[in-house]
C-alpha cells in the first residue's frame, strides 16, 4: 500500500514523570519528560518522598519553563478535621509560583482550591478511583481540567471514556501499583496506626499473611498451601508485580490519552532518567510515523535495568492473575547500579569528568546513557582523581573522577554497571 502523505500525530500525549527532589525534576525534564509531578510539604500522600519547599518549587518551575515543560503538585491527601487549615494559602502560593496544576482527590480540598485559587487548574488524583465516563463528566462539570484514571480501568474502557468525555485523561503507564482501588485501603491505619490516605502507607499489602478458616467452635484450620517446590508453605500475599506499558504505546496514543504517567516519586534519578528516556523515544517514534512504527526491544530491555519487580500490563488487558502476583521466591532481575554522572567532557583528550555516585574501579564493564536514548558500553581503563593522580578505584561518594571514554559524552549523561 502506498500513501501520498505520511500520517503524523501532532498532538502527542504528555510524558509525565515523578520528581521527588529538585535534582530529579531537572533530570526527568532533561531526559524527555513533558511534565513532572512533585509534592509540597503539605497535603500530599508521600510524606517521606523528599517534598519541595516553595523556593525549590519556584526554581523547578523556572527550569521547566526553559524546556517548555510543566510542573504539577500532588496535594492528594484525604483530609481529616483540621488538615485543610491553610490550604487556601497553599493553593494560592502554588498558583503564584507558576505551578501548572494541582493533583487533588479530596472534594474538600478541590473546593478550597477552586474558591480560593481561581485560575489554578485542578487534576483529579487517581486516589479518587475514577473508573467510568460519567465520573469524568461530573468532574468536568465541576471545572476540573483533567482526571487521572484509576489503574483498574482497561484499554477498552479508556476507548469508550474518550468517546464520551472531553476532559483530559491521564493514565498510569509505568511503575508500582496499589493493590486496592486507590484510596479504598486502610490496612496501614488498622495495622500500624498510620493513615494511608494522609501519607502514612506502610505497604501492608506487600506483607506475608496467614490464611485460615474458622469452624463453628472457632477452631482454626490453616489453608496455606505448598509453594512451587511443594515442600515449603507459601504465605498469602497480595503483592503484585509492577506495570510497564512500553509495548502498548500505539493504543494509548490512538485512544486519546492526554498524559502518560510514570509512578515513583521515591525513586532515584537513575530510575527517572531511564524511564522518561524510554517512553520519550517510543512516543516520538510512534507519533512521527504511526503507520510504519516498529516496537524496539531495546526500550523494554532498558526498563528492566531499573525494575524493582517484574513488569506487566496491569489491568489494561484483563484482571491480573496469580502470574502477576509475587508468590514464591523473588525471581531474579538483573540489577544495575547507578555509579556516576558526567559533569564535563573534553573532545580533544576524550576524557570525561564524572561525579561518583557508587563505587566503581578499573576493569569494570560500564554503560553510559544520555537524553535522546544514546548508549554505549565500555570497560574502565585509565582513571584519575580530581588532582589528576592515577587511581584504580573510586570509593568515595560524590568524588570527582576523570576517565577516558570510547565515545563522546555530555554533561548529565549517566553511568551504570551491572551488579
Amino acid at each position, binding site marked *: 500500500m502506498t500513501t501520498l502523505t505520511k500520517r503524523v500525530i501532532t498532538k502527542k500525549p504528555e510524558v509525565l514523570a515523578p520528581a521527588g527532589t529538585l535534582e530529579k525534576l531537572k533530570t526527568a525534564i532533561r531526559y524527555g519528560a513533558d511534565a513532572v509531578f512533585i509534592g509540597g510539604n503539605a497535603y500530599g500522600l508521600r510524606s517521606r518522598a523528599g517534598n519541595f519547599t516553595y523556593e525549590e518549587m519556584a526554581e523547578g518551575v523556572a527550569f521547566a519553563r526553559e524546556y517548555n515543560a510543566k510542573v504539577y503538585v500532588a496535594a492528594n491527601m484525604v483530609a481529616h478535621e483540621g488538615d485543610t487549615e491553610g490550604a487556601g494559602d497553599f493553593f494560592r502560593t502554588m498558583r503564584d509560583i507558576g505551578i501548572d496544576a494541582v493533583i487533588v482527590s479530596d472534594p474538600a480540598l478541590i473546593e478550597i482550591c477552586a474558591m480560593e485559587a481561581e485560575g489554578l487548574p485542578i487534576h483529579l488524583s487517581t486516589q479518587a478511583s475514577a473508573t467510568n465516563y*460519567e465520573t469524568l463528566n461530573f468532574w468536568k462539570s465541576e471545572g476540573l481540567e483533567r482526571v487521572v484514571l484509576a489503574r483498574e480501568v482497561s484499554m477498552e474502557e479508556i476507548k469508550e471514556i474518550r468517546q464520551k468525555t472531553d476532559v483530559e485523561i491521564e493514565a498510569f503507564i509505568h511503575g508500582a501499583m496499589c493493590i486496592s482501588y486507590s484510596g479504598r485501603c486502610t490496612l496501614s491505619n488498622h495495622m500500624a496506626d498510620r493513615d494511608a490516605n494522609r501519607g502514612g502507607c506502610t505497604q501492608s499489602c506487600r506483607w506475608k499473611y*496467614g490464611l485460615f478458616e474458622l469452624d463453628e467452635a472457632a477452631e482454626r484450620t490453616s489453608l496455606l498451601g505448598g509453594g512451587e517446590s511443594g515442600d515449603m508453605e507459601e504465605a498469602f500475599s497480595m503483592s503484585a508485580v509492577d506495570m510497564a506499558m512500553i509495548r502498548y504505546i500505539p493504543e494509548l496514543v490512538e485512544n486519546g490519552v492526554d498524559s502518560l504517567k510514570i509512578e515513583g516519586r521515591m525513586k532515584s534519578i537513575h530510575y527517572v532518567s531511564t524511564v522518561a528516556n524510554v517512553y520519550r523515544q517510543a512516543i516520538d517514534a510512534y507519533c512521527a510515523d504511526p503507520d510504519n512504527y516498529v516496537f524496539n526491544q531495546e526500550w523494554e530491555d532498558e526498563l528492566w535495568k531499573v525494575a524493582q519487580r517484574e513488569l506487566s500490563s496491569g489491568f489494561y488487558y484483563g484482571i491480573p492473575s496469580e502470574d502477576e502476583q509475587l508468590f514464591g521466591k523473588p525471581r531474579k532481575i538483573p540489577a544495575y547500579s547507578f555509579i556516576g554522572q558526567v559533569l564535563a567532557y573534553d573532545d580533544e583528550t576524550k576524557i570525561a569528568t564524572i561525579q561518583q555516585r557508587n563505587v566503581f574501579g578499573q576493569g569494570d564493564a560500564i554503560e553510559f546513557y544520555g537524553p535522546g536514548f544514546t548508549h554505549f558500553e565500555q570497560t574502565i581503563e585509565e582513571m584519575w582523581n580530581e588532582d589528576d593522580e592515577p587511581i584504580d578505584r573510586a570509593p568515595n561518594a560524590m568524588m570527582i573522577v576523570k576517565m577516558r571514554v570510547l565515545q563522546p559524552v555530555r554533561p548529565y549523561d549517566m553511568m551504570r554497571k551491572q551488579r
Partner: protein
Amino acid sequence: MIELIATAESLGQAEKLLENVDTLYIGEDEFGLRLPASFSRAEQKEMIRLAHDAGRKVTVAVNALFHNDRIQAVLPYLEFLAEAGADAVTVGDPGVIHLMAQHGLQLPYLYDAQTMVTSANQVNFWAKRGAVGAVLARELTKEELLQISRQAIVPVEVLVYGATCIHQSKRPLVQNYFNYVGEAAAGQERTLFLSEPKKEDTHYSIYEDRNGTHIFATNDVSLAGQLDVLHEGGLLRWKLDGLFTKGDTFVRIAKQFNEARKLLEADLWTMVSAGWLQQEIQQHHPVGRSLDEGFFVKNPEDIA
C-alpha cells in the same frame, strides 16, 4: 431522634428487624458493596413494601465503584428504585450523582465513599450537590466524629455495630492465591481469614465477589459503651451491619440497640445500662469474631 439502620439478609429477618429499627439497608451486589445478601428486584420491591407497611424506611446500596458497563446499567436500576419507592440510596461514585442530576431522578442520596469520607467539609461538598446525608469512614476518632457532627450541614451516619472493610481490590486475591498453590478456591464463602505476620491472633475476614476482594478489620466494631457520647454529640444515625452476624442473632442485637436507644431518649441511660448492653452484644456476637471500639477511642495525634 435516633435512627437505627440495619442490613437485612432475608424477608423473614427483615420482618423481625422492622420491630426494632427504623430503616432497612439492602441492595444487590451488582450495585451495592458488601451486603449480607444480594436481592432480586422482586425481593427489593417486596422489602420496600414490607418496610413501608410497618411505617419504616428502606435505603438501598448503590455505593459500588462503577466501571463503564455498570454506569450504563445503573440508571435503569435507579429508575426502578424510584418507582419502587426506595426512600434513599447510598452513593460513592460521582458518576452516579452526575447521572441522577442529568436525568432529574427524584431519589434522595447519602454520600458513601467508604474510607474517603473523613471531614465535614467533604460531607458538605456533597450536601451542596444534593446529598441528604453521608456515611462516615470508620477510621475516625471520637474527637473527629464530634467535630464533623457539629459542622456537617446534613446528618451523618456512624457504624455502631458490625464489620469494617479496610481494603477493596479489583484483583481476585483469594482465587489467585489458591491458583498459585494449586488448590481449589473456597469461592464466595465468607469464612476465610488472614492473620498478620507475627500477630497470629489477628483474624481479618476476606472474601471475593463481583466487586473484587474485600478485607475487614480484625475486630468488629461495637460502640455499645459509647452511645451516650454519640447521642449527646448529635450523631444520631446508627448503622448496624449484619454482614457476619446472621439470622436471629443479628435481630437480637438490633433489639438490644433499640432498647438502648429508648433508654437514652428517655434520659434513663446509665453506666449500668451501658455495661448491660456491652455484655449482651458480646454474648450474641459470633464465636471467633472479636469486638472493640475501633478508631472511636484512638487519639487523633497517634495516627501518623
